[in-house]
């Protein structure tokens, strides 16, 4: 299978230019999906750079046509403890990035989904391009938008976060910029110049870095049928209290508006795991009222329950149908929203009541002088 020399070092390439460190996710055949080794390596690097006065800026990008298609969950789906450990490390990395004292610039020139979003959207600067394709597709997989998505999705305008998280809808670079997932939009042709300028910056000053990116920036226009032009319908439907009510509101809307988009949204929701939908909705709603740390702690609890498979095996079924056998026809159990009681959903949000299953312990940040934009996320 894999070459025996494939070490974790190769999966993340490191370059240094003055006080900038350029990290490149290097698994292009797997669309840079994050393996356990990559996550460990990134953690190692980020921790080291924080204490290193010679490092002032971290740039993250992907090799090939993707930035990062997600966490390599298929690799861990068979082993519960390994899976939990994978998520533990991944969420720790997400937290570190979210509370990092130095600026991180992520160049999102391609697919940025799931774990890829977690590795980039928590940083201070997110540069989208005309090639960017963002999505949180977890509900189709029997999982739920994790990696701190309950934080960043819930901060999107209105109830766009619920829409994106429940439907796994794809957003392009212009939409990412419009809703705030991206901070800048730079046409891919200008990326080499942007990167060259960033290598010379020799500063952690946000204003300086921002103004450099601004020089290569463009203001893209939204496509006419962009989902971002339909925020009023999205807000009306996705603000509803329960998944059932979201669906019934969408179904009422589709009668009034002969609209392909609403029917497509309904179909997507109907194909997703009902358990995932309920968990995701509650996670995003709770996340809206919490800081990024508590969001990740909560997500870790949920993912442990998902990995243990005691309440539902949808995650394993989703991985089988979408990633392994690829028949795209998962058999969810429970198969209907009405069959899932609130008390069952409650279970996902409680701590796993078994000795070895500890809550996620986030690294302490109190020894640092955190910048204001980090403090605002706590």
């Amino acid at each position, binding site marked *: 299978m894999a070459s025996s020399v494939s070490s974790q070092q190769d999966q993340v390439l490191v370059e240094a230019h003055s006080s900038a460190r350029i990290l490149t996710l290097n698994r292009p055949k797997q669309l840079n999906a994050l393996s356990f080794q990559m996550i460990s390596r990134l953690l190692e690097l980020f921790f080291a750079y924080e204490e290193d006065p010679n490092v002032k800026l971290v740039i993250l990008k992907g090799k090939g046509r993707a930035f990062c298609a997600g966490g390599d969950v298929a690799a861990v789906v068979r082993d519960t403890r390994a899976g939990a450990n994978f998520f533990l490390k991944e969420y720790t990395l997400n937290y570190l990035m979210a509370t990092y004292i130095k600026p991180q610039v992520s160049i999102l020139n391609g697919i940025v989904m799931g774990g890829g979003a977690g590795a980039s959207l928590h940083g201070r600067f997110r540069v989208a391009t005309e090639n960017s394709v963002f999505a949180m597709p977890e509900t189709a997989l029997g999982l739920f938008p994790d990696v701190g998505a309950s934080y960043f999705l819930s901060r999107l305008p209105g109830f766009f976060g619920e829409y994106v998280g429940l439907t796994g809808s794809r957003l392009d670079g212009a939409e990412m910029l419009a809703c705030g997932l991206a901070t800048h939009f730079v046409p891919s042709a200008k990326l080499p110049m942007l990167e060259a300028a960033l290598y010379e910056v020799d500063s952690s000053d946000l204003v300086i870095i921002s103004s450099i990116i601004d020089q290569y920036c463009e203001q893209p226009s939204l496509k006419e049928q962009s989902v971002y032009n339909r925020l009023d319908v999205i807000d009306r439907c996705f603000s509803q209290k329960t998944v059932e009510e979201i669906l019934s509101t969408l179904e009422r809307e589709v009668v009034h508006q002969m609209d392909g988009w609403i029917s497509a949204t309904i179909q997507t929701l109907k194909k997703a795991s009902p358990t995932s939908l309920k968990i995701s909705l*509650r996670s995003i709603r709770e996340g809206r009222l919490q800081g990024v740390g508590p969001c990740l702690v909560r997500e870790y609890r949920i993912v442990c329950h998902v990995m243990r498979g005691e309440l539902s095996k949808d995650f394993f079924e989703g991985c089988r149908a979408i990633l392994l056998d690829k028949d795209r026809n998962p058999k969810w159990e429970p198969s209907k929203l009405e069959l899932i009681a609130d008390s069952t959903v409650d279970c996902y949000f409680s701590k796993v009541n078994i000795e070895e299953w500890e809550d996620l312990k986030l690294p302490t940040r109190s020894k640092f002088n955190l910048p204001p934009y980090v*403090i*605002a996320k706590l």
Partner: protein
Amino acid sequence: MDPAFQRTKILTNHLLQSSLSSHARTPSLSSNACLNYSAPELSENYAFGIKEMRKLIDGHHVEERDWLFGLMRQSKVFNPKVRGGRVFVSPDYNQSMEQQREMTLKRIEYLPERGVFKGWLTEKGEEVEWRKFACFEVLSIFDHSLATTLGVHFFLWGGAIQFFGTMHHHDKWLRDTENYSIKCCFAMTELGHGSNVHGVETVTTYDSNTGEFVINTPCESAQKFDNVRVPKENLLNSVADVSPDGKYLSSIKDPDQRFAAFMAPLTVGRVNIAVSSVYQSKVGLAIAIRYALTRRAFSLKPNEPEVLLLDYPSHQRRLLPFLAKTYAMCFAANYLKMLYVKRTPQSNKTIHIVSSSFKATFTCNNMQILLECREACGGQGLKTENRVGHLKGENDVQSTFEGDNNILMQQVSKALLDEYVAAQKRNKGFMGLGLEHMNKPCPIIPPQLTSTTLRCSQFQMDALCLRERDLLNLFVADVSQCQAKGESKEHAFIMSYQLAEDLGRAFSDRAIFQTFVEAEATLAAGSLKDVLGMLRSLYALICLEDVAFLRYGYLSVDNAATVRREIEKICSELRLHALALVSSFGIPDAFLSPIAFNWIDANSWSSV
């Protein structure tokens, strides 16, 4: 050398720190270390489960509240503003009165669109009543205009239709009221009659020719309607009616009882105001305590960092007892809501007394708490965006509307007096209103009070019961003495107002304390119960600082000193739990204020 050139050279050397100025050993310029904001989340620990505590104090519909919080936070109509990187929602008070009214209306229209009011008037059963209370508690912290408009619309108008209307009225109006297709109001009190609403001067005359009621207010001292005609079928006639030939009919013969029946919907208003005032206190305390965990002032020794406000015993003494009081009020509020939801005709009197007592007590406490919190936030506390000062200003009216607090407390003492007389007549002892302790032997306060005794819930209950018991006896004796001299009962009651006041407070404190003890008893042993026990003791001991304990000799001067020292001790112990205790309120950041977070960044030049 040209002085200007020389000066420039010196300044340049300072800035560039160049070594070429051989003659000058001027120290290079460097900026002072600036004050930094440190988030309390990073340094304070949670010793117990915040979620569990929240569930305990909110009591019900936690997810519903969070959903409503979310609806308001995410909507432009609630005026979101980013300060210090966080979103806050709060009305824009710089708008004119007309614009603010317009915005309040827009907010109210947004809510039914999202299904917030679904079933509020058309659904039956206990769940919807609990849900309404929960929603109201949340809405009341946004803005007083919103809360009052909704209160009048749903509880006064809506309640009147529900309680006094028949099915015909329900069918005609309840659904439209619920989805806000009609905008409703309620007019009862007059310029010259507020507390004594029985004495209103507006007159209704039945015009049998047209089948209409003509409502008219002939006096300037009343100022209500000018010959307004209302069709007969709009008379809400389930309690009393007018026959086709103009006779007044009612199944309730006694005029006082009938009047009481008409006052019934007002009870829910009273309950709502009481319970929402507790939420407002929570907002004030969350802001003031979070601020006190990040703001420093004065160093104890030179070159040491300045001390955090909440590390000062005096600051702890100002805020933490109010925190205990607020927790006590949470449990009492849940008890009051339960009394109301599970009401029966037999329990009406109890509900009236308890709701009067709690409304007066909670709103009075709320004002004291908001005042203290405002002061604890210094000048920044006055800024409208910091909410506390504004909450206090807007909600001051709580002390006098839906029942003037003084009048309400007098009604409580009057009721206790009547209970006493009735119990004696019955010769079966006291039943109800928690007065059963009067049937037992009089509790004894030990002459020497130790820390252990002071923290014991039995001692605390004994002390509060002793005060209530003794004051009730004194009050009854005083009134009887007056009556023996030939005065009427009403006159005797008016003359005994001082004892009545002390008694009213004694009843309220004891009743509230009882709910705290009962809530604490439901918990399994653990850190949550321990912390709650500390709060319960602190609440009891600050009740024991009431002047009545020394005035009537329930505590000796030495005892009072011991109590005072114990209060200080508990405050310093609770200091460690301050952040956890206010986080347990579950009030989202958007409903607090910039001063509770990174107030340095919120006020920085780049932010403003």
